[in-house]
Structures are given as C-alpha cells and as structure tokens.
C-alpha cells in the first residue's frame, strides 16, 4: 500500500449532471470514486420543470426525474456517495485534503463540479425580505402567489422561464428588464411577448424592494437612463439576473476569471493545479446546459483517470 493508501482515487465535489457524469466515467475506468453531493443534490435542475433539450428523451422529462436517474446510474456503477457539504480543501500537495462536516477525506485527484447558484442584486431590502416575498426560485415559491401580482427581474432565458412559470399561479407578472430587448432566446422571448398575463417593464432596474412586517408589498423601479422612479404594487419579486459559480470553499487555490469561474486548460478540464479538474457550470459561463455539464463531467472523469495512470 502506498503512502496515500487511504486516499480515494477520485473525489467528485458536486451532485449535478457534471458531477454524476464525472463519477460514472471515473468508476467505469476502475477508479475508487466518492461523490460529495453538497447542499442541493441534483443541482439546479431540481428547481426546473420540464427539460426539453436533454437528448435521449423524446418526451420531456422533469428536472428532478432526470437527476434522480443520473444519480441512480452513478450509484449502480459503483460510486460511493457522501451526503455532506465541503467546507474547505487543501490543494497544496497530493493527496488533496477535503474537509466536510463529518471529517476529512483524502483524494489523489479532485473533480470540482459545484455548479453555480442564483445571483442576487445585493440590495439590503432584498436580503430583508428574502423568504418573505423575495425569491430566486419560481418553481419553489410560485405556489405562494396564487392570484397575486409578482415581478420578475432579469432579461435572459431564466427570467423568461420564471415569468412564464409564474403565470400558472399569479394573476399578473411584470417582467422588469434594464434594456428594451430581452437577451432570452427567440422562442422564449416570443412566448413572453405573446402571454396575456405578462407585462413588460422595459428600461427599468430594481432600485429597492418595498415592504412591511408581513412581507413584500411592491417594488421601486428606476429608469437607468433618466433616474426616474416608479413604484409598482406586487406581492412578490423573483430575482433572475444570472448565476455565480460556487467556489468559496476553494479559498482562491485555483485560478478563476474575473467573474469567478474556474479557468481550465484549452480543450481540457485541467485547472491551475495538477490533478484537479473542473466540469460543469463552475467553469462554464457560456453554455450552462445540463448536456454540456454532463459532457465536461465525462471529460473530467476520463482526464482524472488518465492522470492517475500517468502517475502510476
């Protein structure tokens, strides 16, 4: 037994499509593989409804169903699962050390697949009313807005999807965007434009969330061109302005770009530390799809296995 006899060949951090795919490939390459699922097993897909663009499913499958199937597949091939949260890692030498709530685990290689999470604007009022009218998850919280009015902040696909989903519950949905055109795909933009319950608020940013002891009562919007203020009475506000990668636990030990996404070598998942690989949304600010996450996950699983082979 070598010095690192107690170390796992591969530890995958993150339970989303990138992590599950990485584990499936590493295990099938004969590597002892442990996957730490984190706070949200299944990842962002667990908060989506129907997934219409994951190849292989002629009929739409729901996000949670897809993720349950991926997890079962990873389990079946022999991945060891830990239901815990990574607090910190030590990448200064191999084997790498991974600290979780229940203790410390060692790994010869690491695959970071911690994904990204919804970003908030950073307003104080946003924090004050979080869970009392401010949300970043329409599928979680839309239920509470039956026949009420809500605002969605953002202009990308996520914002468009959230707005459309919320029309199932709310009486009226205001979609607030800082420009006069959505960034969302053409098909989503058209669905929003054609929807009788959605009212566009072009050229507006969220200036402050307004509320009282019982929660949100409205939003104060600002026209960034004129600084003109407008108040809108709503019972909730959904923030859908994008995502930020989950890298806090790395404490700067891996190189990131200005937005915080992990930098990987061209055509590879290799990070700035040898033996550490990254896949999925934590290193991808461009595509951010379940299928691209699974794709880079597979790459990371293969590359980790090859690295172990080269190390002997």
């Amino acid at each position, binding site marked *: 037994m070598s010095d690192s006899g107690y170390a796992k060949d591969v530890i995958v951090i993150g339970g989303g499509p990138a992590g599950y795919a990485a584990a499936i490939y590493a295990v099938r390459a004969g590597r002892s593989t442990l996957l730490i699922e984190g706070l*949200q097993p299944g990842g962002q*897909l667990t908060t989506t409804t129907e997934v219409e663009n994951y190849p292989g499913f002629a009929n739409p499958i729901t996000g949670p169903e897809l993720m349950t199937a991926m997890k079962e597949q990873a389990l079946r091939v022999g991945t060891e699962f830990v239901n815990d949260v990574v607090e910190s890692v030590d990448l200064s030498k191999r084997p790498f050390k991974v600290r979780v709530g229940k203790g410390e685990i060692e790994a010869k290689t690491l695959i970071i697949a911690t994904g990204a999470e919804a970003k908030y604007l950073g307003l104080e009022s946003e924090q004050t009313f979080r869970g009392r*009218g401010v949300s970043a998850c329409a*599928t*979680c919280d839309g*239920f*509470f807005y039956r026949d009420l009015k809500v605002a969605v902040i953002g202009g990308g696909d996520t914002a468009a999807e959230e707005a459309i989903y919320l029309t199932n519950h709310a009486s009226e949905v205001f979609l607030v965007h800082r420009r006069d055109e959505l960034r969302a795909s053409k098909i989503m933009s058209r669905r929003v434009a054609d929807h009788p319950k959605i009212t566009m608020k072009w050229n507006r940013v969220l200036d402050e969330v307004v509320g009282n002891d019982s*929660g949100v009562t409205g939003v104060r919007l600002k026209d960034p061109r004129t600084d003109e203020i407008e108040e809108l009475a709503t019972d*909730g506000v959904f923030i859908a302005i994008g995502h930020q990668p989950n890298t806090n636990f790395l404490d700067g030990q891996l190189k990131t770009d200005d937005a915080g996404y992990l930098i990987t070598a061209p055509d590879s998942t290799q990070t700035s530390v040898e033996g550490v690989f990254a896949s999925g949304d934590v290193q991808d600010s461009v595509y951010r799809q379940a299928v691209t996450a699974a794709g880079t996950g597979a790459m990371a699983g293969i590359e980790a296995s090859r690295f172990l082979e080269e190390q002997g």
Partner: protein
Amino acid sequence: MSELIETGTDANFDEIVRGSDVPVLVDFWAPWCGPCRMVGPVLEEVAAEYAGKAKVVKVNVDENTVVAGSMGIRSIPTVALFHNGKLTDTLVGARPKQDFTAALDETLAGILPN
C-alpha cells in the same frame, strides 16, 4: 420517513407545535420542491440526535395552506423554530445541518442553564 418526525397539519399544529414542552423545528415543504429534498434527511439526523430534547415536525404546505399562510411562509424550504408556543427563529432555504443545530443549541442553552 423517520418515526421521530411528526407530521404537522392545519388541524394539529397548535397542539403538537405550539403546545410542545420541548423546542420544535418545523419543516415547511412540498413534494414538488427540489431543495426541500435536501432538508428532509438533514432534519432526520437532527431529530435522532436531539431525541427527548427537541423534536421535528414536517408540514406539507400543499395540503396545509392555513398554517403556512398564517405564518406568512412564501418560500420553501423554510424551517421555523418554536419554543413555548412562540416562533423564535426562521431559517429560509436549504441549509447545512449546523445551521439547524446551532439554532436549537441556542434555544436549549436558554432552557437548561448549566
């Protein structure tokens, strides 16, 4: 579900939560809420570790709109801590276990001074 976790409803909430002798963590959840799935197993562990000192009650907001509405719950998962019939803490969103145990420990420290 663990036997240690009780099921709260609109009908029994006053009795098993507000009327409890020990602090109660109330997990407001729904079957369609992805992040809620994470909180369930964490609270089962908490229920086991704090057996006799505190308890955990799960309330399905889909079926029990009155109690969720009266508490102004507008986001799930939300975990509320009750002690002596009063709401003492509210934790919104999926959280690590230590957030729940810290809230309980703080409340228990107030009850059982050493």
